[in-house]
């Protein structure tokens, strides 16, 4: 967009500065407009960030600051004790570990199941592959609500209720659709000749999958894993209902419990909220472009 014509035009105007009132007006108008646009986008950025910054601030304050003396501003003393309290009394460490375990295993299972199924759907030849694909894609439309009660009853009867599997299995199943959608799209864009020549040379289908296709779909694995991470890490409805033992709660539910327990001490609550957010923020800061690309890929089917 910043094309040569654009620059040429600007240079043209620059040459005429001072001589030509019309050119002066053009420059001022454009400068004003650029400043205005910059101002607008930065104000919005501030609105998007400010509540989060405020959270960080009050997670480091004591009650006298939070409740009156200094509601909005920077903490006067950084009260790291809030974070220690969140870990020692608020159980946040436990919740954090549970979330990491549940999310990590969900990502592994979901990736493995989805990538295998996608390989057969995208690159092998069988009659029902289109129907199978459509079935999986319909899963993107099914809201968690629909399965909530039946799953709850099934998990209870299978004695999985109140184990971490009560979360891992449903999370894996509900992220399969998106995973398969992304993997199939990606695999179909790879040239067919890739494994064909290998297969003609007598390579087995499994070897073709593991040593030819799998290394090539790494970018898609990143995309799918990011999606799975966010949906498992942030999930609330299943997490409230399928696990009730305190020692098994994940962060989303744990935080709710902690808020109940600490209702008047905002400092440790804030610390808990910050701790729950840090892993996501770290991932985002390290690979913000990849995360954004995942969301674009995930939306582009319409």
């Amino acid at each position, binding site marked *: 967009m910043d094309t040569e014509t654009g620059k040429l035009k600007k240079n043209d105007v620059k040459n005429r500065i001072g001589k030509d009132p019309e050119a002066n007006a053009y420059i001022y108008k454009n400068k004003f407009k650029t400043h205005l646009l910059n101002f607008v986008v930065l104000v919005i950025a501030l609105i998007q960030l400010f509540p989060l910054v405020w959270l960080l601030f009050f997670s480091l304050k004591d009650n006298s600051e939070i409740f009156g003396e200094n*509601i909005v501003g920077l903490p006067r003393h950084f009260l790291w004790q809030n974070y220690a309290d969140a870990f020692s009394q608020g159980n946040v460490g436990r919740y954090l570990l549970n979330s990491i375990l549940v999310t990590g295993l969900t990502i592994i299972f979901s990736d493995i199941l989805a990538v*295998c199924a996608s390989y057969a759907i995208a690159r092998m030849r069988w009659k029902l592959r289109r129907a199978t694909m459509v079935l999986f894609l319909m*899963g993107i439309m*099914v*809201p968690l609500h*629909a399965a909530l009660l039946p799953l709850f009853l099934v998990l209870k009867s299978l004695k999985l209720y109140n184990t971490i599997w009560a979360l891992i299995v449903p999370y*894996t199943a509900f992220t399969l659709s998106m995973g398969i959608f992304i993997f199939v799209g990606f695999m179909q864009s790879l040239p067919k000749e890739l494994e064909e020549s290998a297969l003609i040379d007598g390579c087995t289908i499994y070897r073709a999958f593991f040593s030819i296709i799998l290394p090539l779909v790494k970018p898609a694995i990143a995309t799918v894993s990011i999606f799975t991470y966010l949906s498992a890490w942030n999930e*609330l409805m299943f997490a409230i209902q399928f696990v009730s033992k305190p020692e098994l709660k994940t962060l989303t539910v744990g935080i709710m419990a902690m808020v109940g327990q600490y209702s008047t001490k905002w400092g440790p*609550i804030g610390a808990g909220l910050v701790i729950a957010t840090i892993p996501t923020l770290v991932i985002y800061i390290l690979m913000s472009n990849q995360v954004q690309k995942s969301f674009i890929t995930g939306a582009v089917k319409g």
Partner: protein
Amino acid sequence: MEKVLGDKKAICIFVLPALLVFLVIVVTPVFMSGYYSLLDWDGIGKSTFTGFDNYIKLFTDSSGFAKSIGNSFILAGLSIFIQLPIAMVLALILAQGIKWENFCRTVYFIPVIISTVVIGQLWRKVYHYDYGLLNSLLKGIGLENLQQEWLGSTSTALMSVLAPIIWQYIGYHMLLFYSAAKSVPGELYEAAMLDGASGFKTSIHITIPLIRPMINVCITYSLIGSLKVFDLIYVLTNGGPVHSTEVPSTLMFNTIFARYQYGFGSSMAIFIIVECLLLTIIIQRLFRSDNTAN
């Protein structure tokens, strides 16, 4: 090679594990919900088959289901007519290639990825009457009389729970619009510039028509997302006070797990699925006929 690629055993090994998990955990429960929705059942005692009574009850008794549907459509309206235009304007500004392009795009997206529970708890504190950010700011600029019990009063609660939802997902739609605007071929902008069109005019006449497919996607997502919303409202008000912020999902959740009306709650779940499916189909039809008319 045909034989290798059509190897039934290999296909089963690749597909069956995913298919089984999917059928058992996602597909079967939908049908079970469908069956439960025809029962009068408290989950413990015996169930009686009551046919479509639960569905009739949805709109005739005082459960507040009709109101919850209304609220979810208010959210959809706000999302489509306020959130999407804001996201669109931001995307068009950023896509023009201004100085803060990457920084802003990255920042706008942060609320999208943060857990709704964190966002919800944070906004509870923002709305707190005595020590919340909002009332403090109002006091700071001398507008004490506007201070409110934001989440506690039936007149302000609904808007107060919907605002954070709008706030959280602006960055999501902005990113989708932005990526679409960036993929418009540069020559089109050059041609427009040569003709002396301003950035504003270029956006209206070139970018927006060309990214119509993405606009359709975003409208669909906003609508369906609004009908399914749960987390943030559960955390902020759980539907209260007096159902004023109730949405179908919170009502379903509480009907099942707080009031043990398994059958009635299931009919709400089925209603939500059918509603989402039907509206998706209708909206796609509308867009299609719209496109052919142009």
